[in-house]
């Protein structure tokens, strides 16, 4: 079989005409932009993966950016009124809240506490 094969292979073949190349290759589309886009068509899963990755990276970067910065907000100091009711000169009852002995405006107040000595 091999000798017959090699004899067959040696026979000269009929060649196509010279204008076949022009006829065939002239059909190649001349829109490189369109063909380029077709060649680089992005699969849906790649698009979805890139979108997901962007979201994750965005969240991580945002969290890192927020944690690194101290909160600079300063609350306005609320007006403070301290009402001292103990030892009110107007009443000897320590649970009488009707009258205050002293009022202090909003500022630092130093206080000292004293343990009540109660006698039953």
């Amino acid at each position, binding site marked *: *079989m091999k000798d*017959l*094969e090699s*004899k*067959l*292979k040696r*026979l*000269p*073949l*009929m*060649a*196509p*005409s010279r204008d*076949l*190349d022009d*006829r*065939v*290759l002239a*059909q*190649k*589309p001349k829109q490189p932009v369109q*063909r*380029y886009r*077709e*060649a680089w*068509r992005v699969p849906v899963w790649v698009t979805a993966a890139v979108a997901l990755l962007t979201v994750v990276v965005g969240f991580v970067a945002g969290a890192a950016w927020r944690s690194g910065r101290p909160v600079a907000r300063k609350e306005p100091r609320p007006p403070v009124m301290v009402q001292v009711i103990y030892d009110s000169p107007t009443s000897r009852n320590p649970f009488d809240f009707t009258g205050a002995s002293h009022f202090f405006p909003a500022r630092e107040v130093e206080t000292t506490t004293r343990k009540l000595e109660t006698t039953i």
Partner: protein
Amino acid sequence: MHTLNGSLERIYLEYRQQLFTCALAITRCPARAEDAIQEAFHRLFRLERKPRRLKAYVFRTVRNAAIDQVRRQPPPAVELDEFIFDPGPGPREAATENEFKRRVAKALVTLSADERETIVQHVYGGLTFREIARIRQAPLGTIVSRYHRGLRKLRTKLEKRP
């Protein structure tokens, strides 16, 4: 990375002769074999995406176009003596070779279409049996047995005195 059209052009330029011979084995007419190749590449250049095995796909498209040509207009009743071979007169010292060529051509056209096409695709198309099986969408074993059966018939016919 080759674009699809670049790859098609490369395959055409590399396998032009083989494509033509395989198409000619079906159409038995050089002009119609060329028309089949042109028609096939008209379709191929407009493909949306690159097929997995481009070479086999190109051969299959050309084969289908050649079969379409034959369906539209059957092959000539008078067989070409040279069939797929170069009909050139050749030098005087090649007379024996020319005689052998004519006998092979005559023997080839007496084979069944499947056997003839398989022999042409393998011997002159340079295609492996696996590639032929893909092109013809037939089992590998069928292709191999067609080839060997065809070759045996061809040898028997060639051994007979003309």
